[in-house]
C-alpha cells in the first residue's frame, strides 16, 4: 500500500514529464521520421531561441510578474549586433566602412547586442520595483518602445550580410551538437543553479509567494526584482544575438510574439502565475512539449490552420492535465 502511494505521488509530481513522454510516443508512432537524430537536433535548435526566453520569463513569473518585452528585446539585440558586424563589401552597410578585425569585431558585436537588450531589462525592473506599476503594463510599454527603437535604428530595413565568423556563432556546432543547443543547455543549468542554489533564487520564490512577507523577512525586494528582469532580458538579448547569427541578418521584426510562446512554455511547465511555484525542469519540459507539437504537426503535414488549432488545444490540455494533480492534492 505504501508503495502504490509512492507511485501515485511520483506520477502526480511529474505529470508534466508524463505528458511529454506521451506526446513523444504519439508523434513517433504517427511519423517514423520523428525519432531520428537529425530531426531531434533540428527540433532542439528550432526551439532553442524561444527556450532561452522561457528560461528568462520563468523567473519573472516566479516572482509574480511577467515580461512581454522579450520578443522586442530579441529584435533590438539582433539588429544592434548585426549592424556592427556587416561585411564591409556590402554597399548598403549601416555604418559605412566599419570593418573591425574579427578578434575584436565579433566580441564587440555580441557584447553590444547583449548590452542593448539587457539595459531595457534593468529599466523594466527599476520601473516595476520603484513605481509599483503592474509588470504586465510596464513590459507592454517597453515591448512597444523597444520594437519602435529597433525599427528606428534600422529604418525598418534588414541588416544583412554579416561576417561569416559571426554567423558561425549561431550556425556552428561542436562535435555535431549545434552551438544553439549547447547555449540553451548552459543557460538551463545556470537558471537551475540560480534558482536552487543561490540566495537570489530563494529570494525570487519568496517574493513571488508573498512580497510583503519577503520584505519583512529582510529581503531586498527592489534589488531582486531588478535582477529578475535583468536576467530575463539578458536571456532575450543573448537569444537575439544568436538569432542574428543563425539567420545571418538582423531585422526589426524578429522575435514578434515570441514572448507568448515563452510564457506558454513556462506555464505548461508548471510555473504558476500566482508566483512562487515552479521549477526549471518543468520549464524545459514545457519547451520540449511545444517543440514536439510543432515538429510533430510539421512532420505530419497537417494544414497550418489545423496546426494552430491542435497546438492551442495541446497547450491547454497539458496544463489541465498538470492541474488535475494539484486539484487532487488540495
Amino acid at each position, binding site marked *: 500500500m505504501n508503495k502504490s502511494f509512492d507511485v501515485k505521488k511520483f506520477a502526480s509530481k511529474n505529470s508534466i514529464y508524463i505528458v511529454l513522454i506521451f506526446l513523444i510516443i504519439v508523434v513517433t508512432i504517427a511519423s517514423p521520421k520523428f525519432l531520428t537524430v537529425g530531426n531531434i537536433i533540428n527540433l532542439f535548435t528550432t526551439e532553442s531561441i524561444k527556450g532561452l526566453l522561457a528560461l528568462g520569463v520563468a523567473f519573472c513569473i516566479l516572482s509574480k510578474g511577467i515580461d512581454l518585452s522579450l520578443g522586442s528585446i530579441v529584435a533590438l539585440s539582433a539588429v544592434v549586433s548585426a549592424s556592427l558586424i556587416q561585411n564591409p563589401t556590402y554597399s548598403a552597410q549601416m555604418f559605412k566602412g566599419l570593418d573591425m578585425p574579427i578578434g575584436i569585431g565579433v566580441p564587440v558585436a555580441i557584447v553590444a547586442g547583449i548590452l542593448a537588450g539587457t539595459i531595457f531589462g534593468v529599466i523594466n525592473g527599476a520601473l516595476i520595483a520603484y513605481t509599483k506599476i503592474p509588470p504586465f503594463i510596464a513590459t507592454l510599454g517597453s515591448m512597444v518602445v523597444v520594437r519602435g527603437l529597433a525599427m528606428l535604428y534600422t529604418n525598418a530595413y534588414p541588416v544583412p550580410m554579416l561576417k561569416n565568423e559571426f554567423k558561425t556563432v549561431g550556425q556552428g556546432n561542436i562535435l555535431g551538437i549545434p552551438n544553439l543547443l549547447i547555449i540553451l543547455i548552459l543557460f538551463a543549468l545556470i537558471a537551475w543553479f540560480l534558482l536552487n542554489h543561490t*540566495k537570489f533564487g530563494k529570494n525570487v520564490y*519568496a517574493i513571488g509567494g508573498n512580497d510583503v512577507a*519577503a520584505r519583512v523577512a529582510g529581503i531586498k525586494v527592489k534589488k531582486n526584482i531588478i535582477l529578475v528582469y535583468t536576467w530575463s532580458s539578458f536571456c532575450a538579448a543573448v537569444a537575439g544575438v544568436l538569432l542574428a547569427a543563425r539567420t545571418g541578418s538582423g531585422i526589426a521584426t524578429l522575435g514578434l510574439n515570441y514572448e507568448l510562446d515563452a510564457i506558454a512554455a513556462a506555464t505548461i511547465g508548471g510555473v504558476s502565475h500566482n508566483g512562487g511555484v515552479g521549477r526549471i525542469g518543468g520549464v524545459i519540459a514545457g519547451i520540449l512539449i511545444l517543440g514536439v507539437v510543432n515538429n510533430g504537426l510539421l512532420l505530419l503535414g497537417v494544414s497550418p490552420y489545423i496546426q494552430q488549432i491542435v497546438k492551442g488545444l495541446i497547450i491547454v490540455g497539458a496544463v489541465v492535465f498538470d492541474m488535475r494533480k494539484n486539484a487532487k492534492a488540495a
Partner: protein
Amino acid sequence: MSEYILEMLDVVKVFPGVKALKGVDFRVRPGTVHALMGENGAGKSTLMKCLMGITQMTSGKIVLKDKEVNIKDTLSAQEQGISMIHQELNVVTARSVSENIWLGREPLKNKIMIDHKKMKQDTLELLEKLHMDINPDELMSNLTVAKMQMVEIAKAVSFNADIVIMDEPTSALTTTEAEQLFKIINNLKSEGVTIIYISHKMDEIFRICDEITVLRDGEFVGSDYSANMDIDKLISLMVGRKLTEMFPKIDCEIGETILKVENLASEDSFHNVSFELHKGEILGFAGLVGAGRTEIVETIFGIRPKTEGHISINGKEVNINNPYDALKNGLCLLTEDRKKMGIIPVLSVRDNTILSSLDNYSKGIKLDHRKIQCDTEEYIDKLNVKTADYDTEIESLSGGNQQKVLVARALLTNPDILMVDEPTRGIDVGAKAEIHTLLTKLAGEGKAIIMISSEMPEVLGMSDRILTMHEGKMTGIISRKDASQEVIMKYATEGFETNEEDNNE
C-alpha cells in the same frame, strides 16, 4: 427529537499525507455555547470547515436537527442555518464594510438591481444592534485588523443562523472588543442560537461556555459540561500531560542599555515615544487596539517610515530604512499579521524557516543545503512544529504551527533585540508555555526583548517593565513590581500624563 441540534459522527478527513480527522464524534445541544478545544493542529478548524462545506469530509455523517444532511458547499450550509467566523480573516479588503457583510446576498429591488439604500440601512441597524461603531461605507482596507474582525462577527450574526461557529474570534481583539463579543454571544444565546466556540484562551472558555469538547491529534478525547471541568483537567485532556507553569518568568540580570529610542514618531500613527531597552530585559507593550504599538515596532524595524526621532543601538545612532538594515543591526521582528507579513504560503516549511538568515547559509554564491537542513531540523524539533516533513507547504499547517515556524525563523537570525508582536496569538496552551519558556531563556542569555501582547496575564507574567500606550501616545512605563491589571488598564484607557519617574525606573 434528540437532545442534540447537531451531531457529527465518525468524521474522517484525509489530506494528502495527513489524516487530519480520524473518526471524530461531536455533539452539540441547542441553545448552548459549546467550546471546541485542542492543541494546534488537533483538527478543530478542519472539523468546522467540513460542517461549513468548505472542505468535504472523507467519510462520516452530519445529523442536523434529527435529519442527516449533505453539505456540499457554503451556500448549502447557510441554507441549513449555519454561519461561521473564520480563524483567518476572509474579507474583500478593496470593498466597503456593508458590501462585505452582505456579500452574495445583497438585497434587490426589481429582482435585478441592488438596493444600495437598504443595504446601508440594514448594515447600520445591524452594527447599531451590536454596538459597533463602524462606518458602513468605509473600505475594509482602512480598518484595523480588530475592526475587520468585528465586521466578520457582525456578518456571521446577520445570517440569523441557528448555529454560529466562531473559530478563534478573539485572537485579533483586545479586551474591550472581546467583552463586546461576549455580550453579543450572551444575547444570541438568549435568542436560542447555538454557538460553537474555538479558542486557546482558557479564561474565556470557562466564562462563556456551557460545554467543552476536546480533540487531540484528530481524535475525540472527551466532552463534558464546563462546570465539571477545571483548567488543569482541560489542559491535561488537550495536551495529554500536566503542564508545569504558564509564565515561567525567572528574574535575570538586567544588563546595559542596548536600544535607545528617543522622540520617535511615524506619520500620524504615534508621536513622541521614548524608551530604553536593556540586555536581558523583557519590555512589555500594553494598550488597546489602535494604540499604535504595532506601528512602533514596525517603525523601529524599518517597515514604516520614521518621521521623527532617533534610534540608537549600543550607544550608536542607527539609520534603518528597511527590514534588511534592521536585521543587520541585530534586530528581529515577529509580526502580528501572520498571513500578510509572515508566511510565504506556497513555500516549504524549510524555506520559510531560513528566509531571514540566507546570508548565513551562503558559501560564496552557493547555498549550503546541508547546513540549512540541519538547522531547520533542529529548530522545528525544538519548537515542536507538527508537520509531515520539511518540504510541506507552510500553507497546509495549522495556524498555530505556522506561528511556530515564524518563531523559528526569528530565532535563526540570532538577534540581539527580538521584538515579538502578539507572539502567542492563536497558539495552544502547551505551545504558549513553550514560547514563554523560550523568551525567558533568551532573556537569560542576555538578549533584549520587546513583547507586544493584548493578553493582560501574558504582559504581566512575562515583562520586566511594561510600556503603556493610548491612541498613539506613550502614557507610561511601569515596572514589574508596580504592575497590575488595574494599573495598566488605567494607563491604557485614560492616557495619564507620562510619569518621568516611571520612565527612569
